[in-house]
């Protein structure tokens, strides 16, 4: 997007977003189940905003004001997060922690049930940046 108010004032902006989902089998972080159905999947969204305002101050002076914003959001969720442990008599609490099977171990001879112990978790990383550039050309 570019908006030219006049030859001395120009505003430019852009927005971008991207989504991805990965699925990690075989016990992510080595603490989850190695059986099918207990993967960790990671829905991810990245977003970016960039704005630039160029103002020509005079014949030898130009000012550019920039603003940038980006966000990285990613979750680590158990596969089958719609499963309710309470449906099999396990009361594990409420909210997102109660939407996947807890870890169940049968000694050391059986593969454990349930996804990685680090699920669920989520993170949002946001960065804001403001930059001003002022140019002067000696005459």
């Amino acid at each position, binding site marked *: 997007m570019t908006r030219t108010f006049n030859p001395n004032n120009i505003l430019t902006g852009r927005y971008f977003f991207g989504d991805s989902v990965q699925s990690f089998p075989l016990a992510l972080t080595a603490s989850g189940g190695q059986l099918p159905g207990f993967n960790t999947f990671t829905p991810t969204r990245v977003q970016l905003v960039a704005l630039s305002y160029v103002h020509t101050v005079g014949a030898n002076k130009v000012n550019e004001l920039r603003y940038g914003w980006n966000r990285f959001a990613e979750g680590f969720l*158990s596969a089958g997060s719609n499963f309710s442990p309470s449906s099999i008599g*396990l009361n*594990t*609490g409420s909210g997102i*922690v109660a939407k*996947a*099977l*807890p*870890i*169940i*171990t*049968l*000694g050391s*001879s*059986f593969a454990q049930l*349930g*996804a990685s*112990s*680090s*699920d*669920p*978790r*989520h*993170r*949002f*990383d*946001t*960065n*804001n*940046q*403001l*930059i*001003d*550039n*002022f*140019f*002067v050309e000696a005459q």
Partner: protein
Amino acid sequence: MASISIAPAFSNFSTNTSRGKLEFDGSTLGTPLQDFLAGDVDGGFQYAGNTVRHTHENSYGLYVQDSFRATTHLTFNYGLRYDFFGVIGERTICEQHNES
């Protein structure tokens, strides 16, 4: 040219091992599978608590640059930059106060 940048970065995340763990080790009926099939839990635990964190950091920079053309074959380019990296803070739990 002069440049001033302000770059606060906020991040928040939650991590926990709160789904819980149930252990069947066979100490009740003899084998882990027997305990599992009988529903005799031999041990377990579940972490609880608020693990959400909101951390942030503000940083500032100032840069000044000039160029001087001494002759048609010689040009000097020089600049000076100052950066300030703020202390990481936490908004809700474990509030961290700036002491620097």
